């Protein structure tokens, strides 16, 4: 079918772009590399837009096989592509935001000596990300899952002469692999008990009771461990803040808008399995809200513009997991999409700021940038309003929906969610005011360089700002009596096991909205009082004390992990090598060798012997062996 090859092109084009840039990038001009790399993302966007329109008109799932990967007995895995309502939205997000970030990068990375490498990695990332969301089975998804970790490694450590960056890259990969082991084990359960890894077949088997609840619990919990790695949740989140070592557009694309949401995608895709395991869902919700709270607290006391955004990402991802945990898969995906818009916007905006600041990322040394870079400021403001949940910006709708869903399940979750929301508004506006308001606090030299970024960077900002502003129309609340587009659109993907949610009364829902909005505005007002009216600027890190110091130091989680895991692992390694392998095992071998085969004296004299002796020994032993064989019978 021609349409199949068209959809295959969606995956294949970024791969082709990667190969071109990787092999010939150094010979081609930067302009051509930029154009090729961007077009291989833009074209797939339009192909998939077409598919999206097809779905709007009631189109069916597109599913086809390429070829068999491997099969053993009745276990078989194919390369197959599945495009349904869920993957079409993910692909649009990936290629849409991806296109903007490629364009932005042409300008942002223009002076880098490894420019073509950068674009080849970025294309490869998109390829793997598309494999992740377009595969029709878990193992295909796993290809993308590990592939994006690889490209994430390559891009975090893009400036590979800096060993701190290399450490961050390595940490990201290894920590992700801890999660991957969980994913792998989860897959084993699914493969063994349902006999397939193909989503449609797995869901069918699960519907027929292929897994009892206890098994579903273990399998889904293992998979959730995988999700915590990729989506930077407790306990596997510490790699994401370090991942900010990569170029800023990479942080926007990989570490905010797309890759880190793969954990949500995994659970959404496996909703039939997760819905069988309410205990897992409870764990997901608790981990989600705990991560959201933790990261928001840390975000309050960070002074590196990208670190604030990184912790904000961790926190927002936590909210998405909260939504998943209360069974609101669609709501989680809603937030994936709006967050994709406004967080990509905020990261690209920070990139624009860092660009102007000549690489300085410390917000204490910024200030007053709005008069130098008005477009960056205006778009950043929209992004901040959106993430803070201020109506009518997109984040308001998705976050409000998460909070409402949490409220139905458990009031405590809702209270904590509102707290996260308040902290979010505060740290975002703290960031915004310190960066853009007041007077410039940096060096004279930096001041002379301040400028608005070129069009290639500001146009993506404007587009993302528009999306961040209006993205909420995808899921208007019930009380507005408007159709909830996402709920209707994604309904075919949800394998419903329990009864539908009871609806909140209109008055409750209005009240929840009002509380969320007012608390957000109070936070912003507080930030305004502190950082604009009082013009206070956070002191040096050493000046923090108490809770602020704890938050500034990220509650010493890295240090604790180092103490608990990294150092013991190295110590055990040395112990195994020096004590067990070299002394114990080898000692026993040498001892028994000496005792049984030769006396120590003979052994010593043999070791000082001549080569010819060995030849003789060799020949003799062979003769002996053959002779023994013949005579012995």
């Amino acid at each position: 079918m021609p349409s199949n090859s068209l959809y295959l092109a969606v995956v294949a084009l970024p791969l082709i772009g990667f190969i071109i840039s990787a092999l010939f990038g150094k010979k081609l001009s930067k302009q051509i590399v930029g154009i090729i790399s961007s077009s291989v993302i833009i074209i797939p966007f339009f192909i998939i837009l077409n598919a999206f329109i097809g779905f709007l008109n009631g189109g069916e799932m597109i599913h086809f096989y390429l070829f068999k990967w491997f099969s053993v007995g009745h276990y078989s895995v194919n390369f197959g592509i599945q495009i349904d309502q869920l993957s079409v939205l993910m692909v649009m997000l990936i290629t849409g935001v991806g296109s903007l970030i490629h364009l932005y990068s042409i300008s942002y990375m223009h002076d880098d000596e490894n420019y073509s490498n950068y674009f080849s990695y970025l294309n490869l990332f998109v390829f793997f990300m598309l494999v992740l969301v377009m595969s029709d089975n878990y193992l295909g998804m796993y290809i993308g899952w590990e592939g994006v970790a690889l490209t994430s490694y390559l891009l975090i450590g893009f400036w590979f002469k800096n060993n701190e960056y290399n450490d961050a890259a390595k940490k990201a990969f290894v920590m992700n692999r801890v999660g991957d082991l969980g994913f792998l084990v989860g897959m084993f359960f699914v493969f063994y008990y349902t006999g397939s890894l193909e989503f449609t077949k797995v869901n069918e088997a699960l519907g027929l009771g292929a897994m009892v609840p206890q098994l579903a619990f273990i399998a889904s919990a293992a998979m959730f461990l995988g999700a915590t790695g990729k989506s930077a949740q407790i306990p596997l989140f510490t790699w994401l803040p370090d991942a900010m070592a990569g170029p800023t557009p990479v942080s926007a694309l990989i570490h905010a808008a797309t890759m880190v949401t793969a954990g949500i995608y995994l659970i959404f895709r496996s909703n039939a399995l997760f819905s069988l395991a309410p205990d897992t869902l409870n764990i997901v919700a608790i981990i989600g809200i705990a991560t959201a709270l933790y990261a928001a607290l840390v975000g309050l006391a960070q002074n590196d513009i990208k670190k604030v955004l990184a912790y904000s990402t961790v926190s927002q991802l936590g909210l998405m997991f909260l939504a998943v945990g209360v069974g609101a898969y669609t709501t989680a995906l809603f937030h994936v999409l709006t967050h994709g818009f406004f967080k990509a916007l905020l990261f690209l905006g920070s990139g624009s700021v860092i660009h102007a600041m000549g690489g300085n990322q410390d917000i204490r040394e910024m200030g007053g940038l709005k008069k130098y870079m008005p477009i960056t400021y205006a778009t950043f403001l929209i992004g901040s309003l959106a993430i803070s949940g201020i109506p009518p910006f997109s984040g308001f709708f998705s976050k409000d929906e998460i909070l409402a869903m949490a409220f139905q399940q458990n009031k405590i979750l809702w209270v904590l969610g509102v707290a996260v929301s308040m902290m979010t508004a505060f740290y975002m506006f703290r960031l915004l005011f310190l960066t853009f308001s007041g007077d410039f606090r940096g060096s004279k030299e930096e001041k002379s360089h301040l400028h608005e970024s070129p069009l290639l960077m500001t146009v993506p900002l404007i587009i993302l700002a528009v999306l961040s502003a209006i993205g909420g129309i995808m899921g208007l609340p019930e009380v507005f009596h408007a159709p909830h587009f996402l709920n209707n659109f994604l309904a075919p993907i949800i394998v419903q096991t329990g009864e539908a949610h009871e609806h909140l009364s209109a008055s409750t829902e209005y009240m929840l909205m009002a509380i969320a909005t007012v608390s957000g505005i109070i936070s912003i007002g507080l930030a305004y009082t502190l950082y604009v009216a009082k013009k206070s600027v956070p002191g040096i890190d050493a000046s923090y004390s108490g809770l602020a110091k704890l938050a500034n130091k990220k509650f010493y989680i890295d240090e604790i992990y180092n103490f608990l895991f990294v150092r013991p692992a190295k110590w055990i390694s040395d112990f195994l090598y020096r004590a067990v392998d070299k002394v114990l095992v080898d000692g026993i071998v040498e001892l028994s060798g000496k005792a049984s085969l030769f006396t120590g004296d003979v052994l010593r004299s043999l070791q000082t012997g001549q080569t010819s002796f060995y030849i003789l020994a060799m020949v003799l032993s062979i003769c002996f062996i053959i002779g023994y064989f013949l005579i012995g019978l």
Partner: protein
Amino acid sequence: MLVLTLLILPFVGALLTALAGNRSANKIALLSTVATLLYTLKMYFDFSQGTQVDWSFNAQWLVDPNIMFSLSVDGLSMLMLILTNLLTPVIVLSGLGSSANNSRVFYSLILAMQGAMNGVFLATEGFTFYVFWELSLIPIYFIALIWGRDYSRKITFKFFVYTLFGSLLMLISIIVLYLFAGSLQLENLHRLSLNGLGQTIIFLGFFIAFAVKVPVLPFHTWQPDTYVAAPTQGTMLLSGIMLKMGLYGFVRWLLPIVPFAVAQFAPIVITLGIVGVVYGAWIAIQQDDLKRLFAYSSLSHVGLITAGIFTVNTMGLTGASVQMLAHGVNVIGLFFAAEVIFRRTGTYDLSALGGVRTKAPWFSTYFFILLLGSIGLPLTNAFVGEFMLIFSVWQYNSALGVFAGLTIILAAAYMFRMFQRAMLGNTNTVTQDFQDLNLSEHLTFIPLIILVFVLGVYPMPIIEMVEPVIKQIIQLAAI
């Protein structure tokens, strides 16, 4: 008769190389190995097309005792022949850039070893198998002894004693087998039904011989030292091809012949294998010598293959087959990368290196791809095998399976640490003049790189080739 060609070509090549001058020895050896490779590929082509060719050879060796010289080819042998005859030319080619002393003897020994290993994989008779097994040891012994590092004498001796010890035990097992069966033909041995004690004795003899070769914990202590001390081409032969003789031995000479003993010892062997997986990988985390690091990494990988074999299920045996080839490709590539570094810097020490990537982008790309293969990234060669092996162990015992799965974390940790310290960061006085690859080095890496991807994306031909053999072995191993 046709099958004899696989013995004749390498041995004649060995003779010619020995007679040639030192300067042309390498090229003659390369020609010989390429000829063997082409013949193997032709065989594979006929084999996979199902063309009716008689691939067996039988001759009476001795009348009393009743000893035959028997060779035959099935899917599993074919896989091992491909492994041997595909990788040997690469190993020979890898030496083109450096000149060994007395290279005519050196390459002659390599070819002799190739011939002997072909014999091991073709033998369908116990004594034939034993002779080739021993024959393959002699060349590698001299290679390690004469061309190894200065201090290699003691180490090589240890290696020699270890393997000889194993061989002696195997010989005893073979004799016992003969006493029971009156013949050492594989098909006769398949029909044999031995009592428990007989099976146990035979099992132990064979097992220890194979376990030393692989090596399986705790029979491994010769291995890291030998890999470090041997010349790199010797290390490639040992780790890439020769250790598969042991793994192949498990499948061919243990599973179908002494199934009771296999079932009895399987829990121990699988546990040893899995402990080896984690043990080797964990030790590799802190190693600073490139070759020693790869040696422990290899120990880890073969532990998993061993465990998969002893699950005696289709998944495990298929995974083991795929992984044997993948491991051969990756480990040879990694040791060659170590050799490339050594040629330019005179050291294998990670703490002395750094910044190579800036100087040698091609080399670092190849090295990185081999590293990805080795850590089993999906779409590279080791992934499918590793997935199947861990899955098979998980089916055998889910806790052991998860424990074995730690390898994916540990491997990432030690490999990325290694790569970072050797290749990334800034250059120093040792690496500042690092040259990128020359032509022969490119040509050595390229086939390996191609195999990393081809086997990773399309392993089906391998799986289909070994499928009937595995089915048969599992039937014979059923108790």
